[in-house]
């Protein structure tokens, strides 16, 4: 027997058990499968919707054929006379007919009920428009991506944060923790739990990123992928450390109670912290000030910074600075979390007060 087995061996054993017991849970596997399918469906739907710009069927005569054919998104049917063109409009074979006219524009547009706006503007002489602050990204796309980052962050963090909290309380409630602590130090146990659940959460994030990337390639949305590629990678990096931070907090909070029913009483504030970025990014995804603040606050940086990178508002050094802040808070959370965890783990019964847990 080797009594001097290094602590990392114990950490890995604990992590392995955490991962193994989760991977054997059917509920977990099924919900992950559903999540991946939803992500794939979302990307595919987005792809098809953007390709689905139906060309407008338009009837023309020989005088207008050249001018109309040059317009985008029209399907031209050339007819011999005005009467024939009107007939096609009436029967609904075409949406509109463009005929030669003697007005200033030189065209007459014939439509059945409503004026075809896009055709009218396409054939009109528009004044020159100068936009001082152009929107670089499609606002709808921006909104969906904000939801996607926010939702993925919230769901993954809540799922695996919840898992770590339950696992801590399960060990306390069943008292197996006393047996474990007679074999390994509390810090080893905590480290193993955090690492195990981080591996699981990262696995899920990477699977989602892979599905999104493949979906974008398959549906030919390469230009979205070019703008989204870097933010996705940054999201993964920020999520990694953001989750370690949250996992340490969840473990510490959960160690203060002794029964599963009481978990909520200490973990609710952390759950709020996870939900905040989701809500904020949906409401304020076009507000640069809120996004900038979010991109530096450790709890919302995993959502805020990739979002700013996506819309091109962040300077190259900003993600690095934000990551440094996140890392520092991560270290602080681990130190404080480990202290609370060590001090609370063997206190059974009523909830341990935070001051006592910190004092030891």
């Amino acid at each position, binding site marked *: *027997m080797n*009594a001097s087995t290094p602590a990392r*061996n114990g950490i890995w054993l604990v992590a392995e058990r955490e991962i193994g017991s989760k991977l054997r849970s059917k509920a977990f596997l099924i919900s992950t499968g559903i999540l991946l399918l939803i992500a794939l469906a979302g990307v595919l739907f987005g792809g098809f919707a953007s390709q689905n710009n139906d060309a407008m069927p338009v009837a023309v005569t020989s005088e207008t054929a050249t001018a109309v054919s040059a317009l985008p998104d029209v399907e031209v049917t050339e007819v011999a006379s005005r009467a024939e063109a009107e007939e096609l409009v009436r029967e609904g074979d075409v949406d509109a007919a463009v005929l030669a006219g003697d007005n200033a524009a030189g065209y007459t547009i014939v439509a059945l009920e409503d004026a075809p706006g896009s055709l009218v503007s396409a054939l009109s002489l528009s004044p020159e428009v100068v936009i001082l602050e152009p929107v670089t990204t499609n606002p709808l796309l921006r909104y969906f991506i904000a939801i996607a980052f926010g939702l993925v962050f919230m769901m993954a963090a809540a799922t695996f944060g919840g898992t770590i909290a339950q696992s801590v309380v399960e060990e306390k409630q*069943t008292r197996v*923790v006393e047996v*474990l*602590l*007679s*074999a390994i130090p509390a810090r080893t146990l905590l480290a193993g739990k955090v690492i195990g659940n981080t591996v699981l959460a990262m696995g899920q994030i990477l699977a989602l990123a892979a599905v999104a990337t493949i979906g974008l390639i398959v549906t030919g949305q390469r230009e979205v992928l070019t703008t989204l590629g870097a933010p996705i990678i940054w999201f993964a990096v920020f999520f990694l450390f953001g989750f370690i931070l949250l996992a340490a907090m969840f473990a510490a909070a959960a160690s203060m109670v002794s029964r599963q029913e009481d978990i909520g009483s200490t973990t609710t504030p952390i759950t709020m912290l996870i939900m905040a970025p989701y809500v904020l990014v949906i409401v304020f995804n076009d507000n640069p000030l809120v996004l900038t603040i979010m991109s530096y606050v450790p709890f919302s940086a995993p959502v805020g910074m990739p979002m700013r990178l996506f819309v091109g508002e962040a300077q190259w050094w900003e993600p690095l600075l934000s990551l440094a802040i996140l890392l520092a808070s991560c270290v602080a959370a681990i130190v404080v979390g480990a202290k609370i965890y060590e001090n609370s783990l063997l206190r059974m019964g009523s909830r341990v007060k935070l001051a006592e847990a910190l004092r030891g």
Partner: protein
Amino acid sequence: MTTGLLELSGITKSYGSRRVLDDVSFTVAPGRLTGFVGGNGAGKTTTMRIILGLLSSDGGRVDLDGTPLTTADRRRFGYMPEERGLYPKMKVREQIVYLARLHGFSKPEATERATALLTELGLGERLDDTIESLSLGNQQRAQIAASLVHDPEVLILDEPFSGLDPLAVDVVAGVLQASAARGASILFSSHQLDVVERLCDDLVILAGGTIRAAGSRDGLRAEHARDRYELISAGDAGWLRTEPGVTVVDFEGGYALFDADGPDTAQRVLQSAVARGDVASFAPKHPSLAQIFKEVIQ
């Protein structure tokens, strides 16, 4: 390799203003089973947790072979907490293998040991069942396997026999004796004084946070023997009542239980008894553990 002599000296512990352990000192010797008895709330579990490093003491020290106990030493300890604890949804063998690996065994070694030990404890048929599907008695056996699987040098067992049927008590007692025979130092607490009396080599009695008696079982019995003798003879033993220096405790026909004021008196009684007729038995009567216990905790 250390020998595993565990020594507690002057351990004190208070929760707030309530002192739960006061100057607790005793030793747990290798190769011996030390029984740890005391009433509810006497401080047994607290003492055990301090030995395991699960709690820190306010004062005093725990030494192993004369040097202060370290975390590395404690990895060679086995512990069975009073509140049983294993993962309910984990399979029996998987769980014991996991614990053995946490104690530093390789996977194949751990599997081999877990299988052998669980089989010895009568769980050979249930290796791949989850803990929660076992009866309480069988969960208890699994718990004992958890504390023994790494062949610990020092074993600390909090109430290992509670909840076991008499057959299971014998199985567990056998496993513990085998472990002691291999040189382990074993400290176990129990409320079942008859089991402790039968099993232990040494005894520690704790009451109100202080040690009331500690030493070898036989030594303690001799110490608490008050020159009480039992006589079984053919004739009527009524004559004893008029014998000087003798106080009869119990008497019926040829049977008498009496206290003598000294060994000389006892010898004189024996001689008169032999002179009066056939003596079937004459022996000093040692007090039971239950009697000693009641006596010392008062």
